[in-house]
C-alpha cells in the first residue's frame, strides 16, 4: 500500500511529469489557455493513459517478454496507443456525443502526446506490477492534469496583464512553467 502511495506522490508532485520530466510539453503549452479545455484535456489524457498503461503492460508481459522480443517495445507500444486513441475517439463519438463534445477534440492530440508513450515505457522499465503500472500511469496523468489546470488558471489571469509583446504566447507560458517548476522544487526529497 505504501509502495503505491510513494508512486502516487512521486508522480504527481516530486517528479511532476510536465514540470520536472518534460513530458507532454506540447499539450501543456497548447491546451492551457482556458480552464475548461484544460480540464477536458486532463480527463481525456487520464482516461487514455489508464487504458494505455494496462494494455501496454499486458502486451509487454504476455507477448513481448515471453517471445523474447522486448526490443520491439517502442513500435508495439506506439501502435497500441495510436490505435487505442482512435478507437476510443470513435467509440465516444458514437456512444456519447456529450462526452465527445467535451473530450473529442483533445483525443487526436493525445496520439502525439509523448507523456502517454513515455510513462508506459517508464512503467515497464521500473518493473512495476500491473497494478503499480496502472497506478503510476494514472498518477502521472493526474500530475499532468494538475499542472495543466494550475497553468490554465494562471494563464487566464495573465491574459489581462500588460505583457510585453514579444513575450506573448509561448515565452510567457514557458516563464510561467519555469516559475511553477521552481515552486515544485519544494517537493523534492519528500519521500
Amino acid at each position, binding site marked *: 500500500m505504501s509502495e503505491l502511495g510513494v508512486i502516487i506522490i512521486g508522480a504527481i508532485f516530486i517528479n511532476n511529469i510536465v514540470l520536472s520530466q518534460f513530458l507532454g510539453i*506540447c499539450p501543456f*503549452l497548447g*491546451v492551457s489557455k482556458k480552464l475548461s479545455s484544460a480540464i477536458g484535456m486532463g480527463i481525456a489524457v487520464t482516461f487514455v493513459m489508464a487504458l494505455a498503461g494496462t494494455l501496454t503492460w499486458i502486451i509487454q508481459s504476455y*507477448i513481448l517478454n515471453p*517471445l523474447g522480443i522486448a526490443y520491439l517495445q517502442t513500435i508495439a507500444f506506439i*501502435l497500441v496507443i495510436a490505435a487505442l486513441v482512435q478507437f476510443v475517439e*470513435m467509440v465516444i463519438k458514437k456512444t456519447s456525443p456529450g462526452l465527445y463534445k467535451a473530450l473529442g*477534440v483533445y483525443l487526436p492530440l493525445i496520439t*502525439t502526446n509523448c507523456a502517454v508513450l513515455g510513462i508506459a515505457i517508464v512503467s515497464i522499465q521500473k518493473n512495476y506490477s500491473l497494478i503499480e503500472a496502472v497506478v503510476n500511469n494514472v498518477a502521472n496523468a493526474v500530475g499532468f492534469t494538475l499542472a495543466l489546470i494550475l497553468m490554465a488558471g494562471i494563464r487566464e489571469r495573465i491574459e489581462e496583464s500588460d505583457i510585453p509583446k514579444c513575450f506573448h*504566447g509561448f515565452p510567457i507560458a514557458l516563464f510561467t512553467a519555469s516559475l511553477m517548476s521552481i515552486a515544485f522544487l519544494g517537493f523534492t526529497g519528500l519521500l
Partner: protein
Amino acid sequence: MLYAVISLAAMGAVFGVMLAVASKKFAVEVDPRVEEILQALPGVNCGSCGFAGCSGYAEAVVKGEAPVGACNPGGAEAKQKMAAIMGTDTADSGMERKIARLLCNGSTSNSSMLYKYEGIEDCHAAAVHYSGPKACHYGCLGLGSCVKACPFGAIKMGTEGLPVINTDLCTGCNICVQTCPKQLLQLAGISQLVDVRCRNKGKAKEAKDVCKAACIKCKLCEKNCPEGAVQVVTDNEGSVAVIDHTKCTNCGICVTKCPTKAIEKASPIKAEVCAVQDGPSENKPAGCGSCHICG
C-alpha cells in the same frame, strides 16, 4: 527474428482491421461541406452574418437556411468558394466590397465642448452624461469605442479626435456600425466616395453654434445635384442632408457647393485594393496551438 516479424505483422493487421471495422461501425454522419465552408470563411466570428460565429453560419448554409453571400469580411472570394462548394450559381457574384464610413466632421477644431469629461475611454460611458462631452448631441465623441471594437485593427483614432478608417483593412463586418452609440458609422460600397459627414438634425443655427462643419440644411446640395442624389430629409427629430448612394455618381458638385464643408469626397481608393480583398492577415483564428499538424 521470426517471432518479431510475425507478432509485429499480426499487430499491424489486427489494429488495421480493427480500426477499419470500427470506423465503419461507429461512423457518424457529418456533412463534409460544413467543414469546407468553414475553411472558406475568414473565421473571425464577427457575427455580422447574423449567426453564432462562422461555424453557425456554415451549418446554416449547408442546411440551406442561409445564403452564401452573407459574409462581409469574406467578401466576393468567400462567396465564390462557398457557391462552388454548395454548387449554386456564381453568376451574380459581382458583389461590391463594403467598408465603413464615418458620418461626422466634428473634429476638435470644428466642434465645441459642453464639459470636460473625465473617466474611462468609452463612448457609451461618456454618452450617459448629457449625451457626451461634445456640444453637438449628434457628433462623434472621439473616445474610440469603434477603435476597440474593430476586430481587424482597421480603425485608428486620428489626431483630430475622429476615428480614421483604414480602407485596406476594413472588411465591412458591420461591428463598428453596431457599436457606435451615435450611429455615425455606415457601410457603403467602396466605390462610393461622397458622404454627408454630419448627422445633426437640429436647427441650422443650433447646429452651426456647436460645430463649424455642421449641415445647416441650406439645401444647396439638393438644388445642385444633377442626379437628385442628395436630399435634406426631415423626420420628427429634425432634418439633415442624406446621400442616396444608388444615385450618386461621385461628381462632387455638392462638395463644392456645401458652405460648411459638411459634404466630403474621399480620395479614390487604389484599384487593386478595390478589386482584391486581402484576408485578415494578423487576425487569423487561433487554433489549439499545441502543434502544427492539426492546426
